[in-house]
């Protein structure tokens, strides 16, 4: 969610930082000095912090970490400009005294916010911008007050400024209380820093897999800083200022970078590989450096200095040892850090990318998991809680597979069970791999589960539609039976009784004539009843579709030819075929002004194809024969389709294809 004011503020901060950096570059350019390591670090820090700050604030405006990035970028820029101007003024090249003093005064304390805020709040709030719990509020307060106090006391400490010893602090307050407050600030900041580190450790312990991956990134960068800063400081004299400072500053740059990667989840799961490589090359460098130093020093002492031999021998030793040493270290690190897990996660991530791009189907999830987990027989069974069944990706119910050597692992999201993975027992011994890959594939599993569920529901609806049609057919058959065997026979019996009565009456009399007329009425009623029953379901269907169609044609007032197979089909198929033909025929007779009709029914490719072709005026469509719409529904319910081909003046063909395999 981006609130209306988020964007303007972000861009104002970016613009301010860039302006400050540009001004400090301008000051350097005006002095004609070459940019030194200090200004290079400022540039690098801004180059890392600004894009990260923009990305995080725009994506997660409520997360203070993005704002910390931007705030630090501004203070770094301001510190850089102040430092540049103070240098310019203090070297006596020019500049106003007032401004120069102010710059020097600020520069000496400018490190406080941008070093201490990341060291406390970044760790305390990482990665979601919230405290672990409200119990950590004192730590946050301690850090906040400590940093503020440190800045104030730094700015108010009397005497020469730290970075510009020749300048006296213009705003120094000569009081013992400053010293006390400085000590208090140090204490509070220390509480803030160690409290923040503890909170991060706690977060890691309690966190789920994803959170742990995120914290690992920060831990890697923190570890790097923790190693490089003391080593750099200790070897300051040995390796020289440039190397030591560069190493320290670069290691500090990895902190915001790692935080950004973790928060933005960009290549989040590659952390293991990064740690792996860092460890391998760190240990390798240290090892080779040690060997180089030992050989060159040892030989130097033995042979005496001034010879190039020790250097050559040390180089040779390093060159010879590089490959075996690297392989050994790599193997040792791989053993400690799970490579299969990294590869599995990489495959799943790749699949998710393909899925988003539409190059892969969610149904491939099972195959991808089988590949990622290295178990080709692995199956993903989706759980449908409403029905209490497991289904496969096509939505078919799967019986409980209890194959030997197989194991079942549930896949959950929150409290909801999504699926069950049926896999090799061997995988059960690597819960970390299994859990990581399942969690990474969670979304894909959920999507395929939904699709499987939709498929299943659709199949159910289709089945029930077919059942409804079949039930309707059965009902028609029952109704037809009832009309014929019940009502009609009863009427015939009554007619017979009347005839008997008629025989008892004097022939030719009024009563006999009345009875005779009544029987004639009764005969008409029976005839009507028979027509009604035929409409409900023609009894000829009992003798097959061919017979029923012949009888249909015989009753047609138009010349109607039937070409029908004598094969028998399922009752519902024959019934549907008959009613399609009957409806189409009725339409032709009513609307088409045709002279001849051909009704055909034959099997083709596992379907019964029924067609009614006429030579009438054409132009028919399903809409102007609502009976055909109903027939279309009936055909579709059996999984078939109805087609109407009609061209003006070239007749109409109504074709229904009904699966009968």
């Amino acid at each position: 969610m981006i609130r209306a004011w988020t964007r303007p503020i972000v861009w104002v901060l970016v613009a301010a930082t860039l302006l400050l950096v540009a001004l400090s570059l301008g000051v350097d350019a005006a002095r004609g000095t070459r940019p030194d390591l200090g200004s290079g670090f400022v540039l690098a820090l801004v180059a890392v912090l600004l894009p990260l700050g923009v990305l995080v604030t725009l994506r997660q405006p409520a997360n203070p970490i993005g704002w910390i990035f931007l705030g630090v970028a501004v203070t770094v820029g301001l510190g850089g400009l102040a430092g540049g101007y103070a240098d310019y003024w203090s070297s006596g090249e020019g500049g106003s005294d007032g401004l120069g003093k102010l710059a020097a005064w600020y520069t000496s304390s400018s490190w406080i916010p941008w070093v201490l805020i990341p060291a406390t709040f970044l760790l305390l709030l990482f990665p979601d911008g919230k405290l672990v719990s409200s119990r950590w509020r004192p730590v946050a307060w301690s850090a906040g007050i400590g940093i503020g106090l440190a800045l104030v006391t730094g700015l108010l400490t009397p005497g020469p400024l730290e970075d510009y010893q020749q300048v006296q602090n213009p705003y120094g307050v000569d009081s013992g209380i400053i010293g006390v407050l400085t000590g208090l600030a140090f204490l509070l900041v220390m509480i803030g820093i160690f409290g923040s580190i503890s909170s991060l450790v706690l977060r890691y312990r309690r966190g789920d897999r994803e959170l742990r991956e995120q914290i690992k990134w920060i831990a890697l960068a923190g570890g790097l800083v923790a190693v490089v800063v003391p080593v750099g400081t200790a070897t300051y004299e040995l390796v020289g200022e440039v190397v030591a400072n560069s190493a320290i500053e670069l290691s500090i740059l990895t902190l915001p970078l790692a935080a950004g990667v973790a928060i933005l989840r960009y290549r989040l799961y590659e952390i293991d590989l990064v740690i792996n490589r860092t460890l391998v090359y760190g240990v390798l460098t240290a090892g080779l450096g040690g060997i180089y130093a030992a050989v060159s020093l040892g030989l130097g002492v033995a042979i005496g200095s001034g010879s190039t031999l020790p250097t050559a021998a040390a180089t040779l030793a390093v060159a010879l040892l590089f490959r075996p040493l690297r392989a050994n270290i790599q193997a040792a690190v791989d053993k400690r850090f799970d490579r299969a897990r990294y590869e599995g996660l990489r495959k799943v991530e790749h699949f998710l990318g393909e899925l988003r791009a539409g190059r892969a189907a969610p149904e491939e999830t099972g195959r991808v998991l089988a590949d990622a987990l290295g178990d080709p027989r692995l199956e993903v069974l989706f759980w449908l809680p409403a029905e209490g069944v497991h289904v496969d990706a096509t939505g078919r119910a799967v019986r409980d597979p209890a194959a030997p050597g197989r194991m079942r692992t549930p896949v959950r999201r929150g409290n909801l069970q999504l699926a069950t993975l049926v896999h090799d027992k061997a995988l059960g011994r690597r819960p970390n791999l299994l859990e990581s890959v399942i969690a990474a594939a969670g979304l894909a599993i959920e999507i395929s589960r939904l699709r499987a569920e939709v498929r299943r529901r659709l199949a159910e609806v289709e089945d029930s539609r077919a059942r409804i049609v079949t039930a309707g057919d059965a009902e028609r058959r029952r109704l037809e039976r009832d009309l014929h065997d019940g009502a009609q026979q009863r009427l015939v019996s009554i007619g017979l009784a009347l005839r008997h009565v008629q025989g008892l009456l004097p022939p030719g009399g009024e009563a006999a004539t009345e009875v005779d007329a009544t029987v004639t009425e009764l005969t008409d009623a029976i005839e009507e009843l028979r027509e009604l029953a035929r409409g409900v379901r023609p009894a000829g269907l009992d003798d097959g579709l061919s017979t029923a169609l012949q009888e249909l044609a015989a009753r047609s007032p138009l010349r109607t030819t039937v070409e029908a197979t004598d094969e028998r089909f399922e009752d519902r198929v024959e019934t549907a075929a008959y009613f399609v033909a009957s409806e189409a025929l009725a339409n032709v007779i009513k609307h088409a002004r045709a002279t001849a009709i051909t009704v055909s029914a034959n099997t083709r490719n596992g379907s019964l194809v029924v067609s009614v072709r006429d030579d009438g005026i054409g132009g028919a469509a399903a809409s102007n024969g609502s009976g055909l719409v109903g027939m279309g529904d009936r055909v579709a319910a059996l999984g078939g389709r109805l087609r109407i081909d009609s061209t003006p003046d070239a007749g109409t063909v109504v074709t229904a294809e009904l699966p009968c395999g």
Partner: protein
Amino acid sequence: MRVVIAEDQALLRAGLKRLFEDAGHDVAAGVDDADRLRAAVSEHEPDLAVVDVRMPPSFTDEGIRAAQWIRDAHPQTGVLVLSQHVESAGAVDLVSQGGFGYLLKDRVLDVAEFLDAAVRVADGGSALDPKVVASLVGRERDALEVLSDRERQVLSLMAEGLTNSGIAQRLVLTERTVEGHVRSVLMKLNLPGGEDAHRRVLAVIVYLRASSGAP
């Protein structure tokens, strides 16, 4: 003549029994399913069996199968099948064997014609319901175009099983005129002639059945 009636509805069975008895015939037995019908026919060897198509247990074609059995086991017994509806391809097959009739049930209300047909079947003749004949003739419009309207009328009545005198009565024509029409029909349709009325009727039915493409 002696009659056995197979009809599962008691009321209708009683009505049929009275119909035959009123006309002076002897109803030897009235049964309600196909098995009892077979037993009754074997026992009484009647001149005529009146058989309902649909009978227990399945109410489909028990009557037709029992009828066929009677024709095979007791050729002297004529069989008159009563049906509720026009459709029944099997019926035409049976009728074309002779000594067979197939009528809609409500035909019994036309007492005189029904009894005529019954006597004719008992004598080894045929009876085919006018509705069935109309359906057969309807399917063969093209082939029957060679006939005049009157000849088609005569053909239909022949198919119903009527003899020349029956046709003459029905159409109010002299028997001689009818004789002429019959000859003309047989000639135009290339059917065998001869003196035996029953045979000529069968020839007509066989012709209609064959050309209608019924199985």
